[in-house]
């Protein structure tokens, strides 16, 4: 929140002869946590003005008595550091431009687009370094954010953590490689929330799921009336990310035309909305992720080489789960604790046999698959300990590798076959080459359950 003890709140003065303008702007800015004062005319404004009291002054160009232009000069004499933003009733560009020449920061026309106003003020504050001070303050207090939800003690994951810590505070473009389900978005979020941009949003664009015909608008936005049905301006993802981070997920799926467009924006930090000619300046950090072989795509000509080099500046590879099996118990227990508490079920652990299965399985869907497996097991669990039978994963021969007795192998084999045929006893006894009574006896002996 803005109201932290050590922060000096941003202080604003609104000078306008219209009560409704003073009131609504005062209210609007109070919700931002600013200190707001107002004045109905130049005399009142000058009475309140002292050097260093106000950071930003909103000034109506047309005031009774001394007008806004004259007041602007007087303010500059008293407090040259205050940022002045002129308010005009209608777009009287001439006067507004004149005020800019005399040192006003910008002007707004009534009624003003709240989105424009909000970003205008945010930019002023950024320039006045108040945000920076605030960021530094928070950094001193809490140091680095915990890298939340990314679990792993294996050397492979420790290497990933080290890379995140090294690259996060910089503005370097990051490419995250990894199979699907390895948690690439979590890595992107960890980088963002440990960067100086953390007080601005991280905007995810799923490049694999872009709606055909809307890709351009998705990235760059469009003006009102750019096409049928566009009653209002749409801001693109790049504009929404201003100050923050853009995360391009499945970047390998971007079409060549959009690759060209994005490359230009990355180089110039500016673009225009579809159907518009206003130049929009943006400042964002780029993080991409892919599970595709981009080098191959470059060779095959489906991915632009220059775009590839722009993106592949600092690359982090997340190992698949089967290459860091020592992390599996840690992950299972993390998800178990989390899911059991959210489902309000007193499930607390896995049986030794269940854990053996979890560790032996190959997890082609990686962490996402493991999380889903634990979730289903928690749903069906009827005791504090999750048993191997309650896990929705196929039995692998490896699961019994630690116990090679004839009984153990027979038990695993019967269980496998029963699962393959969906517990159809007749079918299973045919496959196993034994009669149904023998099968029932064996099911009972080994305590097999669906």
């Amino acid at each position, binding site marked *: *929140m*803005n*109201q932290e003890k050590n922060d000096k709140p941003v202080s604003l003065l609104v000078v306008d002869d*219209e009560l*409704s*303008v003073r*009131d*609504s*702007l005062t*209210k*609007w800015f*109070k*919700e*931002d*946590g600013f200190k707001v004062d107002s004045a109905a005319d130049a005399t009142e404004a000058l009475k309140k003005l002292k050097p260093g009291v106000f950071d930003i002054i909103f000034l109506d160009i047309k005031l009774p008595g001394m007008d806004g232009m004259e007041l602007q000069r007087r303010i500059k004499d008293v407090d040259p550091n205050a940022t002045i933003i002129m308010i005009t009733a209608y777009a009287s560009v001439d006067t507004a431009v004149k005020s800019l020449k005399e040192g006003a920061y910008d002007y707004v026309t*009534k*009624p*003003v*687009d*709240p*989105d424009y*106003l*909000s*970003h205008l003020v945010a930019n002023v504050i950024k320039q006045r370094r108040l945000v920076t001070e*605030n960021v530094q303050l928070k950094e001193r207090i809490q140091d680095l954010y915990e890298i939340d939800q990314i679990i792993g003690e294996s050397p492979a994951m420790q290497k990933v953590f080290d890379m995140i810590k090294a690259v996060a505070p910089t503005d370097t473009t990051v490419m995250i490689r990894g199979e699907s389900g390895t948690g690439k978005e979590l890595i992107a979020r960890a980088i963002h929330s440990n960067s100086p941009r*953390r*007080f*601005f*949003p*991280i*905007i995810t664009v799923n490049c694999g799921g872009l*709606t055909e015909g*809307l890709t351009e*608008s998705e990235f760059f936005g*469009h003006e009102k009336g*750019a*096409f*049928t*049905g*566009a*009653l*209002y*301006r*749409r*801001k693109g993802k790049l504009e*929404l990310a201003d100050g*923050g981070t853009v995360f391009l997920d499945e970047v390998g799926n971007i079409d060549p035309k959009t690759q060209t467009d994005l490359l230009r924006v990355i180089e110039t930090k500016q673009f225009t909305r579809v159907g518009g000619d206003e130049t929009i300046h943006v400042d964002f950090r780029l993080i991409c992720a892919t599970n595709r072989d981009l080098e191959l795509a470059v060779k095959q000509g489906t991915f632009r080489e220059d775009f590839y080099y722009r993106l592949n500046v600092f690359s982090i590879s997340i190992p698949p789960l089967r290459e860091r099996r020592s992390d599996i118990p840690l992950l299972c227990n993390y998800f178990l604790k989390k899911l059991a508490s959210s489902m309000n079920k007193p499930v607390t652990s896995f049986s030794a046999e269940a854990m053996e299965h979890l560790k032996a399985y190959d997890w082609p869907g990686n962490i996402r698959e493991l999380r889903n497996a634990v979730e289903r097991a928690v749903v069906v669990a009827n005791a504090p300990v999750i048993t191997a039978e309650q896990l929705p994963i196929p039995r692998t021969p490896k699961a019994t590798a630690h116990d090679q007795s004839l009984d153990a192998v027979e038990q695993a084999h019967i269980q496998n076959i029963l699962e393959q045929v969906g517990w159809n006893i007749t079918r299973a006894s045919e496959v196993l080459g034994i009669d149904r009574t023998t099968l029932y006896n064996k099911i009972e002996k080994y305590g097999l359950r669906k």
Partner: protein
Amino acid sequence: MNIYLLPLRFPDNHLLPDLASSISHAFNLTVLLLEKPLSLKEGYDPVRNQYNSTWILAQILKLFPEENCKILGITGLDLYVPVLTFVFGEAQLDGKAAVVSSFRLRDELYGLPKNAEKLKDRLEKEAIHELGHTFGLIHCHDPNCVMFTSTYAEEIDFKFIELCPVCSEFLKKSFHL
């Protein structure tokens, strides 16, 4: 303390049950539906073809069912305050009443395909946001917090429906919620 939900020319009544439970979850308070007719005619500006949200707040304040409660007006009308082109909603900071509009939250206004799920999600977030102001919460710096300021529909999608730990703590300390 109770929170009252007051539909004011709101076309999507089917969204109200989920909205009520989301609000109840956010503030840990009972949410009740309040059905009182309120003429909005005088709040209409024919030139702007919009309704003055500050005027609507004043009308809501007149029909308080009990002393210690909050009321959230919910409408499908396009709202404005005089100096701004539009608002998603308005609230009395540290007060009793708030109003929120679904009008500008619809994807189809921006030339995108209709998306019922997004409309519901945005409305719930903005409703909690405006009510948060009535509890004295101001805009939050945490981009994930529901009290992060949003002045554009798709911006609402990037914050969560939850209050961040700092804002929750403020509610707990001030109101024991």
